[in-house]
Protein backbone atom coordinates (compact mmCIF):
# COMPACT_ATOMS: atom_id res chain seq x y z
CA UNK A 1 0.00 0.00 0.00
CA UNK A 2 1.33 3.41 -0.86
CA UNK A 3 1.71 5.89 1.95
CA UNK A 4 -0.70 8.80 2.43
CA UNK A 5 0.21 12.12 0.80
CA UNK A 6 1.19 14.80 3.30
CA UNK A 7 -0.33 18.21 2.61
CA UNK A 8 0.31 21.49 4.41
CA UNK A 9 -2.68 23.83 4.40
CA UNK A 10 -1.58 27.35 5.27
CA UNK A 11 -3.00 30.81 5.71
CA UNK A 12 -0.37 33.40 4.86
CA UNK A 13 -0.87 37.00 5.86
CA UNK A 14 -3.36 38.88 7.87
CA UNK A 15 -6.83 37.81 6.82
CA UNK A 16 -8.73 36.03 9.55
CA UNK A 17 -11.04 33.86 7.49
CA UNK A 18 -10.15 30.19 7.47
CA UNK A 19 -13.48 28.56 6.78
CA UNK A 20 -12.41 27.82 3.21
CA UNK A 21 -9.04 26.45 4.31
CA UNK A 22 -10.75 24.20 6.85
CA UNK A 23 -13.28 22.91 4.31
CA UNK A 24 -10.47 22.06 1.92
CA UNK A 25 -8.41 20.49 4.73
CA UNK A 26 -11.32 18.28 5.77
CA UNK A 27 -12.04 17.22 2.17
CA UNK A 28 -8.40 16.24 1.60
CA UNK A 29 -8.42 14.23 4.84
CA UNK A 30 -11.55 12.49 3.59
CA UNK A 31 -9.60 11.55 0.47
CA UNK A 32 -7.03 9.80 2.64
CA UNK A 33 -4.40 12.53 2.89
CA UNK A 34 -2.58 13.65 6.01
CA UNK A 35 -3.29 17.34 6.30
CA UNK A 36 -1.23 19.61 8.50
CA UNK A 37 -3.04 22.84 9.22
CA UNK A 38 -0.86 25.76 10.26
CA UNK A 39 -3.50 28.10 11.64
CA UNK A 40 -4.00 31.76 10.77
CA UNK A 41 -1.63 34.66 10.23
CA UNK A 42 1.48 32.82 9.12
CA UNK A 43 4.43 34.49 7.44
CA UNK A 44 5.91 32.92 4.29
CA UNK A 45 8.92 32.03 6.46
CA UNK A 46 6.77 30.16 9.00
CA UNK A 47 4.96 28.30 6.23
CA UNK A 48 8.16 27.16 4.59
CA UNK A 49 9.65 26.20 7.98
CA UNK A 50 6.57 24.08 8.66
CA UNK A 51 6.71 22.47 5.22
CA UNK A 52 10.36 21.58 5.74
CA UNK A 53 9.88 20.20 9.27
CA UNK A 54 6.84 18.20 8.25
CA UNK A 55 8.35 16.84 5.00
CA UNK A 56 5.19 17.50 3.03
CA UNK A 57 4.50 16.61 -0.60
CA UNK A 58 2.05 19.45 -1.18
CA UNK A 59 1.48 23.01 0.07
CA UNK A 60 -1.94 24.57 -0.37
CA UNK A 61 -2.27 28.24 0.54
CA UNK A 62 -5.52 30.06 1.13
CA UNK A 63 -5.47 33.82 0.85
CA UNK A 64 -8.33 36.29 0.84
CA UNK A 65 -6.60 39.49 1.87
CA UNK A 66 -5.49 40.76 -1.52
CA UNK A 67 -1.79 40.48 -0.71
CA UNK A 68 -1.33 37.34 -2.81
CA UNK A 69 1.05 38.93 -5.33
CA UNK A 70 3.25 39.91 -2.40
CA UNK A 71 3.14 36.79 -0.21
CA UNK A 72 2.71 33.88 -2.61
CA UNK A 73 5.87 34.55 -4.67
CA UNK A 74 7.78 34.86 -1.37
CA UNK A 75 6.72 31.35 -0.37
CA UNK A 76 7.81 30.08 -3.78
CA UNK A 77 11.20 31.80 -3.49
CA UNK A 78 11.84 30.48 0.02
CA UNK A 79 11.01 26.93 -1.08
CA UNK A 80 13.53 27.19 -3.88
CA UNK A 81 16.12 28.54 -1.45
CA UNK A 82 15.64 25.51 0.83
CA UNK A 83 15.80 23.02 -2.03
CA UNK A 84 12.12 22.15 -1.66
CA UNK A 85 11.26 22.50 -5.36
CA UNK A 86 9.73 19.04 -5.45
CA UNK A 87 6.80 20.22 -3.28
CA UNK A 88 3.59 20.70 -5.29
CA UNK A 89 2.50 24.27 -4.67
CA UNK A 90 -1.13 25.33 -5.09
CA UNK A 91 -3.23 28.25 -3.91
CA UNK A 92 -6.80 29.40 -3.69
CA UNK A 93 -8.86 32.37 -2.61
CA UNK A 94 -9.99 35.69 -3.95
CA UNK A 95 -7.44 36.09 -6.72
CA UNK A 96 -8.21 37.87 -10.02
CA UNK A 97 -7.95 35.69 -13.10
CA UNK A 98 -4.93 37.46 -14.64
CA UNK A 99 -3.00 37.34 -11.39
CA UNK A 100 -3.89 33.67 -10.94
CA UNK A 101 -2.34 32.93 -14.35
CA UNK A 102 0.66 35.06 -13.45
CA UNK A 103 1.19 33.02 -10.27
CA UNK A 104 0.94 29.86 -12.36
CA UNK A 105 3.77 31.17 -14.51
CA UNK A 106 5.76 31.80 -11.32
CA UNK A 107 5.78 28.32 -9.83
CA UNK A 108 2.24 27.66 -8.65
CA UNK A 109 0.96 24.44 -10.21
CA UNK A 110 -2.62 25.70 -10.01
CA UNK A 111 -4.50 28.62 -8.50
CA UNK A 112 -8.12 27.72 -7.68
CA UNK A 113 -10.84 30.34 -7.61
CA UNK A 114 -14.11 30.67 -5.74
CA UNK A 115 -16.64 27.97 -6.59
CA UNK A 116 -14.06 25.23 -7.07
CA UNK A 117 -15.39 21.81 -6.07
CA UNK A 118 -13.28 20.36 -3.24
CA UNK A 119 -13.10 17.07 -5.13
CA UNK A 120 -11.33 18.84 -8.01
CA UNK A 121 -8.57 20.01 -5.65
CA UNK A 122 -8.12 16.47 -4.30
CA UNK A 123 -8.05 15.09 -7.86
CA UNK A 124 -5.48 17.66 -8.93
CA UNK A 125 -3.25 16.78 -5.98
CA UNK A 126 -3.54 13.04 -6.56
CA UNK A 127 -2.55 13.45 -10.20
CA UNK A 128 0.30 15.88 -9.68
CA UNK A 129 1.97 15.28 -6.32
CA UNK A 130 5.19 13.29 -6.23
CA UNK A 131 6.11 11.10 -3.29
CA UNK A 132 9.84 11.68 -2.86
CA UNK A 133 10.50 9.96 0.45
Amino acid at each position, binding site marked *: MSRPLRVLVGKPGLDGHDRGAKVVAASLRDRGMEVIYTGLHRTPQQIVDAAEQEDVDVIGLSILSGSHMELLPQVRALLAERGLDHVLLIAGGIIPEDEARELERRGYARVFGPGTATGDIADFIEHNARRT*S
Partner: protein
Amino acid sequence: MTAPLTAATSALEDLLAEFRAGKVGALARAISWVENRHPQSGALLDAVYPQVGRAWRTGVTGPPGAGKSTLVDGLARHWGAAGRSVGLVAVDPTSPFSGGALLGDRVRMDRALSQTGVYVRSMANRGSLGGLSLAAVAAADLLDAFGFQEVLLETVGVGQAEIDVAAAADTTVVVLTPASGDSVQAMKAGLMEVADLFVVNKADTPGAERLQTELEDMLGLRRAAAPRPEVLLCRALADQGVAEVAQAIERRRAADQASGRLEARRRARDLARVRRLVVEGLRAELWHEQEIQEAAARALAHGERPDEVARKLVRSILEGIQRNGGPA
Protein backbone atom coordinates in the same frame (compact mmCIF):
# COMPACT_ATOMS: atom_id res chain seq x y z
CA MET B 1 21.82 -6.33 -10.12
CA THR B 2 23.98 -4.20 -7.89
CA ALA B 3 22.73 -0.90 -9.25
CA PRO B 4 19.57 -0.62 -7.11
CA LEU B 5 21.52 -1.64 -4.00
CA THR B 6 24.17 0.98 -4.68
CA ALA B 7 21.51 3.61 -5.25
CA ALA B 8 19.82 2.69 -1.96
CA THR B 9 23.13 2.75 -0.09
CA SER B 10 24.04 6.13 -1.47
CA ALA B 11 20.55 7.50 -0.65
CA LEU B 12 21.19 6.44 2.94
CA GLU B 13 24.67 7.91 2.95
CA ASP B 14 23.47 11.20 1.49
CA LEU B 15 20.71 11.41 4.07
CA LEU B 16 23.08 10.61 6.94
CA ALA B 17 25.61 13.19 5.77
CA GLU B 18 22.95 15.92 5.72
CA PHE B 19 21.46 14.70 9.01
CA ARG B 20 24.86 14.90 10.70
CA ALA B 21 25.41 18.35 9.21
CA GLY B 22 22.32 19.46 11.10
CA LYS B 23 20.03 19.99 8.10
CA VAL B 24 16.41 20.15 9.27
CA GLY B 25 15.18 18.82 5.92
CA ALA B 26 17.26 15.67 6.42
CA LEU B 27 15.79 15.12 9.89
CA ALA B 28 12.32 15.54 8.38
CA ARG B 29 13.05 13.02 5.64
CA ALA B 30 14.59 10.60 8.14
CA ILE B 31 11.37 10.66 10.14
CA SER B 32 9.41 10.04 6.93
CA TRP B 33 11.60 7.01 6.20
CA VAL B 34 10.77 5.55 9.58
CA GLU B 35 7.11 6.42 9.27
CA ASN B 36 6.84 4.91 5.79
CA ARG B 37 8.91 1.83 6.66
CA HIS B 38 11.42 2.70 3.98
CA PRO B 39 13.58 -0.38 3.22
CA GLN B 40 16.64 1.47 4.57
CA SER B 41 15.00 2.83 7.72
CA GLY B 42 16.45 0.05 9.86
CA ALA B 43 19.95 0.83 8.61
CA LEU B 44 19.30 4.53 9.24
CA LEU B 45 18.31 3.92 12.87
CA ASP B 46 21.33 1.64 13.37
CA ALA B 47 23.60 4.36 12.01
CA VAL B 48 22.38 7.08 14.36
CA TYR B 49 22.05 4.81 17.41
CA PRO B 50 25.41 5.83 18.92
CA GLN B 51 24.08 9.40 19.19
CA VAL B 52 20.85 8.36 20.90
CA GLY B 53 20.40 8.72 24.64
CA ARG B 54 21.45 12.28 25.37
CA ALA B 55 18.05 13.97 25.24
CA TRP B 56 15.45 14.13 27.97
CA ARG B 57 12.13 12.76 26.79
CA THR B 58 8.87 14.02 28.19
CA GLY B 59 5.56 12.42 27.21
CA VAL B 60 2.40 14.49 27.40
CA THR B 61 -0.97 12.76 27.14
CA GLY B 62 -4.58 13.28 28.14
CA PRO B 63 -8.06 13.53 26.68
CA PRO B 64 -8.85 15.68 23.62
CA GLY B 65 -9.18 19.36 24.40
CA ALA B 66 -7.35 19.18 27.74
CA GLY B 67 -4.75 21.68 26.54
CA LYS B 68 -1.86 19.35 25.76
CA SER B 69 -0.61 21.31 22.75
CA THR B 70 -0.87 24.60 24.62
CA LEU B 71 1.04 23.16 27.59
CA VAL B 72 3.65 21.70 25.26
CA ASP B 73 3.94 25.11 23.57
CA GLY B 74 4.56 26.64 27.00
CA LEU B 75 7.12 23.99 27.99
CA ALA B 76 8.93 24.43 24.67
CA ARG B 77 9.14 28.18 25.24
CA HIS B 78 10.23 27.72 28.86
CA TRP B 79 13.07 25.39 27.90
CA GLY B 80 13.86 27.42 24.79
CA ALA B 81 14.27 30.54 26.91
CA ALA B 82 16.60 28.58 29.19
CA GLY B 83 18.81 27.94 26.16
CA ARG B 84 17.77 24.33 25.56
CA SER B 85 16.90 23.05 22.10
CA VAL B 86 13.47 21.46 21.79
CA GLY B 87 12.03 18.88 19.37
CA LEU B 88 8.46 17.67 19.44
CA VAL B 89 6.53 14.76 17.97
CA ALA B 90 2.75 15.30 18.06
CA VAL B 91 0.56 12.32 17.22
CA ASP B 92 -3.07 12.62 16.11
CA PRO B 93 -5.44 9.88 15.06
CA THR B 94 -5.93 8.68 11.50
CA SER B 95 -9.52 8.52 10.35
CA PRO B 96 -10.54 4.86 10.27
CA PHE B 97 -12.91 5.73 7.43
CA SER B 98 -10.68 7.49 4.91
CA GLY B 99 -7.15 6.74 6.13
CA GLY B 100 -6.55 10.49 6.15
CA ALA B 101 -5.85 12.73 9.13
CA LEU B 102 -6.16 16.34 10.13
CA LEU B 103 -3.06 17.28 12.10
CA GLY B 104 -3.66 20.53 13.92
CA ASP B 105 -1.09 20.67 16.68
CA ARG B 106 0.89 23.41 15.01
CA VAL B 107 -2.09 25.76 15.37
CA ARG B 108 -1.64 25.79 19.17
CA MET B 109 2.12 25.89 18.92
CA ASP B 110 2.48 29.28 17.30
CA ARG B 111 4.18 30.98 20.22
CA ALA B 112 6.88 28.32 20.49
CA LEU B 113 7.24 28.11 16.73
CA SER B 114 8.14 31.75 16.50
CA GLN B 115 11.16 30.93 18.66
CA THR B 116 14.04 29.54 16.70
CA GLY B 117 15.21 26.03 17.36
CA VAL B 118 11.86 24.38 18.05
CA TYR B 119 11.19 21.50 15.69
CA VAL B 120 7.65 20.16 15.43
CA ARG B 121 6.66 17.01 13.59
CA SER B 122 3.01 16.00 13.26
CA MET B 123 2.37 12.28 12.87
CA ALA B 124 -0.85 10.43 12.14
CA ASN B 125 -1.18 7.09 13.89
CA ARG B 126 -2.13 5.49 10.57
CA GLY B 127 -4.42 3.12 12.40
CA SER B 128 -1.61 0.64 12.89
CA LEU B 129 -1.64 -2.08 15.51
CA GLY B 130 1.29 -1.16 17.71
CA GLY B 131 2.99 0.43 14.72
CA LEU B 132 2.35 3.89 16.07
CA SER B 133 4.59 3.41 19.03
CA LEU B 134 7.36 2.04 16.85
CA ALA B 135 7.32 4.99 14.46
CA ALA B 136 6.84 7.67 17.11
CA VAL B 137 9.51 6.29 19.43
CA ALA B 138 11.88 5.94 16.47
CA ALA B 139 11.09 9.56 15.56
CA ALA B 140 12.01 10.52 19.13
CA ASP B 141 15.31 8.66 18.68
CA LEU B 142 15.98 10.67 15.53
CA LEU B 143 15.29 13.97 17.34
CA ASP B 144 17.59 12.80 20.13
CA ALA B 145 20.36 11.83 17.70
CA PHE B 146 19.92 15.10 15.80
CA GLY B 147 20.93 16.87 18.99
CA PHE B 148 17.76 18.21 20.59
CA GLN B 149 18.17 18.39 24.35
CA GLU B 150 14.47 18.24 25.17
CA VAL B 151 12.26 15.85 23.23
CA LEU B 152 8.51 16.08 23.75
CA LEU B 153 6.05 13.36 22.70
CA GLU B 154 2.46 14.50 22.60
CA THR B 155 -0.39 12.05 22.07
CA VAL B 156 -4.13 12.01 22.61
CA GLY B 157 -4.68 9.59 25.48
CA VAL B 158 -7.51 7.72 23.81
CA GLY B 159 -6.07 4.34 22.96
CA GLN B 160 -3.49 1.95 24.34
CA ALA B 161 -1.05 2.65 21.51
CA GLU B 162 -1.23 6.39 22.15
CA ILE B 163 -0.73 5.95 25.86
CA ASP B 164 2.21 3.61 25.18
CA VAL B 165 3.95 6.37 23.24
CA ALA B 166 3.72 8.83 26.09
CA ALA B 167 4.74 6.13 28.53
CA ALA B 168 7.87 5.48 26.43
CA ALA B 169 9.21 8.83 27.62
CA ASP B 170 11.53 9.34 30.60
CA THR B 171 8.80 11.29 32.34
CA THR B 172 5.09 11.17 31.52
CA VAL B 173 2.74 14.06 32.15
CA VAL B 174 -1.03 13.47 32.14
CA VAL B 175 -3.08 16.61 31.45
CA LEU B 176 -6.68 16.70 32.69
CA THR B 177 -9.30 19.41 33.11
CA PRO B 178 -12.46 19.56 35.21
CA ALA B 179 -14.33 19.10 31.92
CA SER B 180 -12.61 15.77 31.23
CA GLY B 181 -14.55 14.17 34.06
CA ASP B 182 -13.63 13.10 37.55
CA SER B 183 -10.63 11.02 38.49
CA VAL B 184 -12.59 7.82 37.87
CA GLN B 185 -12.69 8.72 34.16
CA ALA B 186 -8.91 9.06 34.18
CA MET B 187 -8.64 5.64 35.84
CA LYS B 188 -10.91 4.06 33.25
CA ALA B 189 -8.83 5.50 30.44
CA GLY B 190 -5.69 3.87 31.87
CA LEU B 191 -4.10 7.25 32.43
CA MET B 192 -3.48 6.89 36.18
CA GLU B 193 -0.90 4.15 35.76
CA VAL B 194 1.33 6.01 33.31
CA ALA B 195 1.49 9.40 35.03
CA ASP B 196 4.64 10.63 36.73
CA LEU B 197 3.02 14.01 37.02
CA PHE B 198 -0.56 15.27 36.78
CA VAL B 199 -1.46 18.68 35.44
CA VAL B 200 -4.97 19.99 36.06
CA ASN B 201 -5.19 22.53 33.25
CA LYS B 202 -7.74 25.32 32.83
CA ALA B 203 -7.39 25.79 36.57
CA ASP B 204 -9.66 28.84 36.49
CA THR B 205 -12.68 26.69 35.61
CA PRO B 206 -14.95 25.40 38.39
CA GLY B 207 -13.99 22.05 39.82
CA ALA B 208 -10.25 22.32 39.19
CA GLU B 209 -9.24 22.25 42.82
CA ARG B 210 -11.69 19.48 43.58
CA LEU B 211 -10.16 17.38 40.77
CA GLN B 212 -6.71 18.10 42.19
CA THR B 213 -7.79 16.91 45.65
CA GLU B 214 -9.44 13.81 44.19
CA LEU B 215 -6.32 12.90 42.29
CA GLU B 216 -4.19 13.40 45.40
CA ASP B 217 -6.55 11.12 47.31
CA MET B 218 -6.42 8.42 44.63
CA LEU B 219 -2.64 8.57 44.52
CA GLY B 220 -2.53 8.26 48.28
CA LEU B 221 -4.27 4.90 48.02
CA ARG B 222 -1.70 3.41 45.67
CA ARG B 223 1.13 1.25 46.87
CA ALA B 224 4.26 3.28 46.49
CA ALA B 225 6.54 1.33 44.15
CA ALA B 226 7.41 4.61 42.45
CA PRO B 227 7.55 8.12 43.87
CA ARG B 228 4.12 9.65 44.22
CA PRO B 229 3.22 11.89 41.25
CA GLU B 230 2.78 15.57 41.96
CA VAL B 231 -0.55 17.14 40.98
CA LEU B 232 -0.20 20.69 39.69
CA LEU B 233 -2.72 23.35 38.73
CA CYS B 234 -2.02 25.25 35.53
CA ARG B 235 -3.48 27.70 33.04
CA ALA B 236 -1.35 26.96 30.02
CA LEU B 237 -3.06 29.48 27.72
CA ALA B 238 -2.34 32.32 30.16
CA ASP B 239 1.15 30.97 30.84
CA GLN B 240 0.34 30.49 34.52
CA GLY B 241 1.95 27.51 36.20
CA VAL B 242 3.86 26.34 33.13
CA ALA B 243 7.27 27.10 34.63
CA GLU B 244 6.19 25.16 37.74
CA VAL B 245 5.27 22.18 35.55
CA ALA B 246 8.68 22.33 33.87
CA GLN B 247 10.38 22.46 37.26
CA ALA B 248 8.32 19.52 38.53
CA ILE B 249 9.35 17.51 35.45
CA GLU B 250 12.98 18.37 36.14
CA ARG B 251 12.63 17.40 39.84
CA ARG B 252 11.11 14.09 38.89
CA ARG B 253 13.86 13.37 36.36
CA ALA B 254 16.53 14.13 38.86
CA ALA B 255 14.90 11.86 41.45
CA ASP B 256 14.45 9.04 38.92
CA GLN B 257 18.01 9.38 37.75
CA ALA B 258 19.34 9.26 41.32
CA SER B 259 17.23 6.23 42.23
CA GLY B 260 18.14 4.24 39.11
CA ARG B 261 14.50 4.24 38.05
CA LEU B 262 15.27 6.21 34.89
CA GLU B 263 17.82 3.64 33.76
CA ALA B 264 15.35 0.82 34.45
CA ARG B 265 12.69 2.66 32.52
CA ARG B 266 14.91 3.17 29.51
CA ARG B 267 15.79 -0.54 29.58
CA ALA B 268 12.11 -1.43 29.74
CA ARG B 269 11.46 0.88 26.80
CA ASP B 270 14.09 -0.91 24.70
CA LEU B 271 12.69 -4.27 25.71
CA ALA B 272 9.15 -3.27 24.79
CA ARG B 273 10.44 -2.04 21.47
CA VAL B 274 12.22 -5.29 20.68
CA ARG B 275 9.06 -7.16 21.56
CA ARG B 276 6.95 -5.04 19.21
CA LEU B 277 9.51 -5.29 16.43
CA VAL B 278 9.59 -9.08 16.77
CA VAL B 279 5.81 -9.29 16.65
CA GLU B 280 5.70 -6.98 13.68
CA GLY B 281 8.50 -8.89 11.93
CA LEU B 282 6.67 -12.17 12.48
CA ARG B 283 3.46 -10.68 11.24
CA ALA B 284 5.15 -9.41 8.09
CA GLU B 285 6.76 -12.83 7.47
CA LEU B 286 3.84 -15.09 8.34
CA TRP B 287 0.64 -13.17 7.88
CA HIS B 288 -0.39 -13.40 4.26
CA GLU B 289 -3.52 -11.33 4.40
CA GLN B 290 -5.26 -12.57 1.29
CA GLU B 291 -4.55 -16.28 1.84
CA ILE B 292 -5.71 -16.12 5.43
CA GLN B 293 -8.79 -14.12 4.56
CA GLU B 294 -9.75 -16.63 1.88
CA ALA B 295 -9.06 -19.70 4.01
CA ALA B 296 -11.03 -18.18 6.88
CA ALA B 297 -13.95 -17.23 4.63
CA ARG B 298 -14.06 -20.77 3.20
CA ALA B 299 -14.02 -22.41 6.62
CA LEU B 300 -16.65 -20.09 8.01
CA ALA B 301 -18.87 -20.73 4.99
CA HIS B 302 -18.65 -24.44 5.87
CA GLY B 303 -20.11 -23.64 9.25
CA GLU B 304 -16.90 -23.91 11.29
CA ARG B 305 -16.71 -21.88 14.47
CA PRO B 306 -14.40 -18.79 14.53
CA ASP B 307 -12.20 -20.19 17.32
CA GLU B 308 -11.79 -23.48 15.51
CA VAL B 309 -10.89 -21.71 12.26
CA ALA B 310 -8.25 -19.64 14.05
CA ARG B 311 -6.69 -22.72 15.72
CA LYS B 312 -6.46 -24.48 12.36
CA LEU B 313 -4.88 -21.49 10.70
CA VAL B 314 -2.23 -21.22 13.42
CA ARG B 315 -1.50 -24.93 13.05
CA SER B 316 -1.19 -24.69 9.29
CA ILE B 317 1.14 -21.67 9.52
CA LEU B 318 3.37 -23.57 11.98
CA GLU B 319 3.34 -26.65 9.75
CA GLY B 320 4.38 -24.44 6.85
CA ILE B 321 7.42 -23.29 8.84
CA GLN B 322 8.38 -26.85 9.75
CA ARG B 323 8.11 -27.98 6.14
CA ASN B 324 10.54 -25.26 5.22
CA GLY B 325 13.09 -26.58 7.72
CA GLY B 326 12.09 -24.57 10.77
CA PRO B 327 12.31 -20.88 11.45
CA ALA B 328 15.01 -19.06 9.52
